[in-house]
């Protein structure tokens, strides 16, 4: 009796201890690097932080002030948001009719088209960036916002389409039929039936496209520089070309804050199915 009880207790404990442990590990997995990044961004230059001190001796906002005053980081933040916003709108406009056709109309070769639209995500980013850059240069769009937005849209459309196709597919046919029976024309059907049903997918797709554009590095690096600067390219100048950890930390946090805020606000819209749809099941 006592043995059975203790076995049950162990199982109960395990049932709650294991997820607790996983959550603790995950929080450490994400939280410790973030906390370190914060600490590094606030190291006082007069009291360097080096081995074997586990924590910096003195914190100050010197590097934050330096980055904000001496570099055009705010301009980069502005152009990042501008490019991401335009990319999202353009991707949405391009993806909507195509996803409707792929999701609702039983066209021949739908499977083939669905594979085709994933190509930009599969081909090597650097190779595509360099030679897309050459192509845009021929078109006179190198180093312009238009060129960068067009290039980002190339990466945004597949995400948007993949999620929208899944949303269109999951609209029940009865609803559409009922609407047509009641006399709804194509336009009314679209606005009253399809649109509300695909709205969550649309929100998820837009968030994906927006964040993807915010963090796109290769394309901006090749096509945008030297005129168009976004946060990732500024970050690369402190991380890849020369290594300035404190300044890189400041710029990283400037890049992370909008992304993670957006994620927190919209978390409930991004269902796991959409993530799976956008990423897996090619």
């Amino acid at each position, binding site marked *: 009796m006592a043995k059975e009880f203790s076995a049950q207790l162990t199982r109960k404990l395990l049932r709650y201890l294991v*997820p607790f442990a996983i959550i603790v590990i995950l929080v450490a997995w994400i939280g410790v690097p973030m906390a370190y990044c914060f600490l590094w961004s606030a190291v006082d230059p007069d009291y360097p932080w080096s081995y074997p001190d586990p924590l910096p001796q003195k914190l100050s906002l010197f590097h934050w002030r330096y980055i904000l005053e001496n570099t055009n980081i705010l301009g980069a933040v502005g152009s990042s948001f501008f490019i991401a916003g335009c990319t999202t709108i353009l991707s949405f406009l391009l993806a909507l009719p195509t996803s409707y056709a792929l999701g609702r109309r039983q066209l021949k070769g739908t499977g083939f088209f669905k594979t085709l639209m994933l190509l930009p995500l599969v081909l090597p980013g650097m190779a595509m960036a360099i*030679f897309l850059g050459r192509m845009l240069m021929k078109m006179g769009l190198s180093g312009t916002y238009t060129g960068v937005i067009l290039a980002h849209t190339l990466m945004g459309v597949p995400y948007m389409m993949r999620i929208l196709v899944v949303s269109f597919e999951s609209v029940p046919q009865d609803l559409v039929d009922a609407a047509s029976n009641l006399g709804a024309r194509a336009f009314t059907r679209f606005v009253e039936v399809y649109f509300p049903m695909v709205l969550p997918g649309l929100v998820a797709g837009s968030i994906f496209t927006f964040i993807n554009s915010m963090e796109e590095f290769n394309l901006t690096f090749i096509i945008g520089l030297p005129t168009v600067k976004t946060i990732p390219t500024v970050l690369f100048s402190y991380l890849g070309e020369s290594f300035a950890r404190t300044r890189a930390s400041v710029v990283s946090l400037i890049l992370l804050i909008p992304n993670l805020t957006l994620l927190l606000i919209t978390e409930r819209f991004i269902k796991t199915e959409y993530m799976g749809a956008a990423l897996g099941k090619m």
Partner: protein
Amino acid sequence: MKTARKKRKFEWGYLLLLPGLGYILFFLAGATGMMIAQSFGLFNYTAESRFSLEYWKGILNETFVDDLLYSLKIAVCASLLCICIAYPLALIIKKLPGERTILSLVKIPMFIPALVASLLILNIIDYHGILNIILVRLQIIEEPLRLRNDSWGVAALLIQAWKNIPFMLIIMYSAVEAVRRDVIDAARNLGAGRLAVFTQIIVPLTLPSALVSVILVFIRVFNDYVISKTAGPLYPNTISNLMHVTAYLYNDWPSAACIGCLMVITAVSFVSVYNYLSKKLLQNL
């Protein structure tokens, strides 16, 4: 009358494909065409433009092979490491309470750009990072490890794992979740034990997703530029890096185009062989 209307509707459907797919194909065809043309010496910016095969002849040198092998090595190691951690974890998480919290947390690294991920993990594993301090304090090692820019690429591998394990976990979790409860119940009714349910239902139903997620991570890592550039070894670096250096530092655009072509060919052939093998595996299951 009816057939005529049907036919018109049919064509209209194909027209709808144009905005999305047309856009993608236009730019991809342009970029790929440019790459192929430049690899044969056309559209040359730094020298006279004429058709020639000399760039293709000189491409298979030692640097190229080393870089290609490095890219493949990191990609294979990272995708195997990720699946070994993500697959069991997805199965465990499904069984537990609090899965929503876990999933919300897991989504976070996916929204952290590769450059930032690289910096975050470098802060941890550097000479004076917390990892080395803990290991030295616990007296597991005497000297702090020098993981950054190490010759094998451990740092790059760790960063890739940090970034890609959550990605894989999301895919695997949606696969595990998609296994319908009634199928499991039916098997249990027919007398299958826990182990039989696992090996004969859950594994066969989630294996396709596992195979797909492995190749997705493989491609992401193989195509990577920034992580190995910032944290990886100095000499054999990624093939993307070689291409960028050849184009922008040496101004040798045709050779860079050859490298790009070979990179695409390697990736495509790897994926095709993998797809063929995984189809065989799934058929034999």
